[in-house]
Structures are given as C-alpha cells and as structure tokens.
C-alpha cells in the first residue's frame, strides 16, 4: 500500500444475513466485492441511486457495518489497522480517527442538549479530555473553525436554520480530531443558497486540517464541484471510478452516462434531450445474473445476461466495469 493512500479496500463485502430458513441462509449483499483506494487529503466522491450501497460502504469503512468478506486497511502516519479484524483498544482508537457527519444529528439527540453539549459529546463519550475546561476549549476551537457564532453554543439547536445546524453537525464530527471523515448526504436537505456555503466550508476544513473525505451524495453536480475522485455504485458493485475531470469529461459506463443524462439541464431549450433510464434499481435480494445493470441498460447484449464484467483499469486510472465500454465510446456519444 503506497504512502499516499489512507484507506485501501480490497474486494470488501458487507453481507446481512436474512431469515434463517433451514434449507438455505439468504444473505443480502449491500456491498459486493468493492475495491477502492482513497488518497490522503482527497475528497473521494461516492454516487449512485438510493439502494446502491453508498451508506453501507461508508459505514463499513467507519467500522460501523460488518465487513463479511475481503478487507480494508487504514494507514496514517501513526497507525495501520486492518478494519476487517479491528477490535478492543485499537477499535476505540480508530473511532477518534474516523468520523461520520450526520445529515441531521438532532433526529438522534435530546432536544434539551445545547449546541455546546452536542459538539462536546464525542469528546466525553470517548474520554478524550481531562477536564471540562479542556472540553470547552476544544469545542470553542472547532466551533470557530466551523464558523459558528460562539455565543450560540449555549443555545438549543431547534432555533437554528438548516445551514447552521449542518455546521454544528460538522463541528461534532471534527471535534475528536479525525483524519478520515465520511459525509453522507450532508448537503442533501439544504437549500442551494446555503449548500454552496457548507461545501466551501468542508473544502476549507479539509485543507486546514489535512482531512480525507468520503463524500456520499446522489447529486452529481455537487460531487463534480467538490470531489477529486468519483466512484459510481450500482446494486452493491463499483461500476466506474475515476478522477473527477476524467469521469465528467467522458463517462465510460452506460449507468454513469444515464445518471448524467438524467440531471435536469438549466437550459429550457434542452427539454426532452435527456436519455431516460427505465425502471428502478432491483432489490439486492433479487440480483440479476450477469451484469447487474443489464435489466435497465440500453446497450445490453446477450453476453451481458450471462457474464458479469469485472472492474478493469485500462492503464489511465479510469476504471470501468462493462463488456462494451470501448466499443460504446466510439459508437455512442456520451
């Protein structure tokens, strides 16, 4: 594993056992043999329709979903952990290095907690500070970095706007001083006017604090503007993965192309130009044979129904998993 990689997953699988019938145990594979390498200090984007396994992959890398096959290695300047076997004191240590930004933390918190208490809770739970004074100091420090008004620390969050709440949520995730942060749909519920502000803040924090982000979003425009690298998931599989510019300049996978095409254009004269993707993502319990995308793919051929394509890197760092990507690049313009 090279020095500039923070997290490296190798054929990582998350399987959930379902209803143990006597004859056979069925397993729901929410993430299926996914390999990714996340560079230190990068903004790694993860996209795909809901149900594609984005949240589960993020949680697996945070050691909050079970890695049932394959493995994932985390390595920073101080430690190296194998996430598939991590436990005990090392797991405790990993919790402060890897954190999740909740979309709306208040859903899970007592409305009687002040902003200060919300941000301080991870420090207290993990016992990272020796005194209340030290806790307060850390809270103030991170709150300032997240551009929160320090006078607001004594208030209750219900009074705050969506943008302010999201900044509180970010401060809570960063207070333990993590190196790896998963932001799962962190701006999805925000108005565009405020979304830009939160995205700019995340970028600022990344460079100030040397963070590595996994940025999960169903909004491709947001991902295009925020991430250095983008991975596209479908039904638990990684179907395409590339540096952002490459991916958006020339998407290779029919699914990625369909996702791009579905984004409503801001040009009223572009109406009806979108190539529509029919149907919906199948249930992971009822996975099609062959290429998982063949039931909806406009380019599917017989081979696709039988044989599953593998993720390949043709040598330019732009990985794709499709039998026909080369031929389609020439014949079907993106």
């Amino acid at each position, binding site marked *: 594993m090279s020095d500039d990689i923070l997290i490296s997953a190798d054929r990582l699988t998350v399987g959930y056992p379902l209803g143990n019938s006597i004859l056979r145990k069925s397993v729901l594979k929410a993430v299926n043999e996914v390999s990714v390498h996340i560079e230190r200090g990068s903004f790694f984007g993860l996209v795909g329709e809901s149900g594609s396994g984005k949240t589960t992959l993020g949680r697996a890398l945070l050691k909050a979903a079970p890695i049932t096959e394959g493995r994932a290695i985390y390595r920073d300047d101080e430690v190296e952990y194998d996430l598939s076997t991590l436990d005990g004191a090392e797991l405790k240590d990993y919790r402060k290095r890897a954190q999740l930004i909740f979309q709306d933390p208040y859903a899970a918190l007592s409305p009687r907690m002040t902003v200060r208490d919300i941000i301080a809770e991870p420090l207290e739970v993990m016992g990272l500070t020796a005194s209340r004074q030290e806790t307060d100091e850390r809270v103030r420090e991170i709150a300032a970095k997240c551009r929160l008004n320090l006078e607001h620390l004594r208030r209750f969050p219900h009074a705050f706007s969506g943008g302010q709440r999201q900044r509180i949520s970010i401060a809570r995730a960063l207070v333990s001083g993590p190196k790896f942060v998963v932001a799962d749909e962190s701006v999805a519920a925000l*108005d*565009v006017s*405020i979304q830009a502000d939160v995205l700019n803040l995340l970028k600022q924090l990344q460079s100030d604090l040397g963070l590595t982000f996994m940025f999960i979003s169903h909004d491709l*425009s947001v991902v295009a503007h925020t991430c250095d690298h983008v991975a596209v998931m479908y039904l638990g599989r990684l179907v395409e993965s590339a540096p952002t510019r490459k991916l*958006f300049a020339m998407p290779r996978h029919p699914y990625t192309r369909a996702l791009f095409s579905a984004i409503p254009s801001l040009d*009223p004269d572009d109406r009806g130009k979108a190539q529509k*993707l029919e149907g919906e993502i199948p249930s992971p319990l009822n996975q099609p044979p062959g290429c998982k995308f063949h039931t909806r793919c406009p380019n599917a051929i017989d081979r696709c129904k039988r044989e599953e394509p593998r993720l390949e890197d043709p040598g330019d760092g732009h990985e794709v998993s499709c039998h026909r990507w080369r031929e389609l690049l020439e014949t079907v313009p993106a």
Partner: protein
Amino acid sequence: MSSLIDVENLTLQFRTDEGLVTAVDDVSFSLAKGEVIGLVGESGSGKSVTAKSLMHLNARNALYAPQSKITLYTDAGEVDVLSLRTARELNVVRGGAISMIFQEPMASFAPAITIGSQMVEQLQLHGDMSKAQARKISVEMLDRVGISDPHKRIDQFAFELSGGMRQRAMIAMALSTQPKLLIADEPTTALDVTIQAQVIDLMKDLVNEFHMGIIFITHDLGVVAQTADKVCVMYLGRMVEEGPVREVIRHPKHPYTRGLIQALPRLDDLDSPLTPVPGDIPSPLERPSGCVFHTRCQEILGDICKSALPHDTQLDATHRVACHLHDTKEVGA
C-alpha cells in the same frame, strides 16, 4: 389564454405563541389553462402556504387579510375560493377542480386502506358513478401512469410499492378526478435523478393530455427549466420576480434570483467557485423592514432598501420584479 385561477393580494398570517407570523405578503399571480408555473424560493419562503391557500387548506391558525382574493374559473362559473366554508363547498376545490401531490407520497395515502379503495372513494365523492365504474377508471389511471399489473396493484397498500411506483400511484390518484389545476409540492425532491426524470416526463405528458394547469413547487431550478412556462420566485412571503422561464433563468432581474442561479453547482463549468447567497433566511418573526431581502442582498442601494418596500415594476408585458434597482423603469414606463 383564459385564466384558470387569479390570486390577488394574498396576505396570510399565522397566530402562534410567539406572535403573528407573516407567511405570505401581498402575493398576486394568474395561471392560465394548460400553463405550468414553477414556484421557487428557499424553505420558509411561503411556497407551500401559498399553494394550500388555493384550496383554502391552511391550518386553523391561519388569518387571511381581508383584501386577499382567489378566484377559480370553472365550467360552472367563478368560485371565490376564500369564501368557501362548509366541507361540501370546499369539495369543489379540494380534490375536485384542484388536486395536490406531495414530496412524500405516503402523505396522500391512508395507511390502512388499499390504493384502490382510496381511489374509488375519492372518485365517488367527486363524481356520480358506481363503485365498479370508479374501479375501472382507477385501474386505467394506474395503467396510464406506468404501473405494471394495475389489476393487482390496485388492491395493494401504498407501503408495498417502491418509491418510484408510490409516486406514480399518488399522481394517478390526484389526476383520476380530472382536476383543472394540479399543485405539485416538491414531488421529485426526495427521488433519485433517474426516477425524477421519469416522473417529470410523466407529468408533462399528462398536462398535455388533460390540458391542466400546474403549479410546480421546487427548489431545483433545473427542474423548473425543464417543466415550467413561467417562474415565480418567492422570498420570505414576497413574490420578488415573475416572468417567462427563459427570461428569468437567462436574464434574472432580482438580486435574489441571480443569487439562486449563481449558487448552483453547474456541470458545464467545473472551475467556477460556488457562490452562496450570504447569510441565512431571517426568522419570520424578525421580518426585515423595507425590502425583506436587504439583509442578504449584495446589490443593496442603501437606506431606501432598508426603509421602503419595493413595489412591482413591470419590465415588459410578462416580466415583473420587485426591487428598487428597477424603480426608475417604472417612472419611464
């Protein structure tokens, strides 16, 4: 084009423990038959409250100012919506001439009743027909919106359907009574872009087929560009700009509209920085004086914006804006 609904000087406050909250302030607009209006603005700007007013559907603590007037034009004549009182009278607008669909389809379905029973019940309430006829129409409508096996689906519960199918079933139910006006309140916000594109397509087809007017509420200007004829932009209860979709998106005249468009992450320009509208939307309990947008406006002119309410300026026959930057044009006009 003949008017389907006229909204004049709609002003609405809510009585709350903390005092009177102004949700809609002197809003006027018209919708023609077969026209699609995109209603945009950030959360709290009064979009949903405005839309619900058209069905006289706001909460009990709502207080309509006396000058507010909503006129619906039906085949049977004009209806003064805000004067409707009894459930019987209100049936004309609720689910009759006007139907509404929501972001969360489950909000339209009663959890313990099958999709079919609910559709039949609604059809019988609004039209003189037998149960068998109502069921037949319901099946046809489910089929029309692209639900496979409509004969089977009709006896299922909404929660048994996938997200996209539920959205379609909700649309089928809303349209089965053949309303003249469909209000769609963020119907695609929670959907994946792929399913959103399908639902938008379906809605466009249905508008053409049934020649309905639509008020499409969304915060996504891309969705507006793809669906609307006309755009209305709201901020803190005020309608700050109204015009044809091409005009408003290409040549926005209100600083708030310009801000919303600049804040969008655009796929055709990955190098441009993201520019937020600075600051947060103020609490409705602390409405700014003068122009309600002045606390966040980057083109603020000075004291006049802080003290005087900008009035509508008609830039041309179809484009109007409420901002002091355009006051002079009114004098010239």
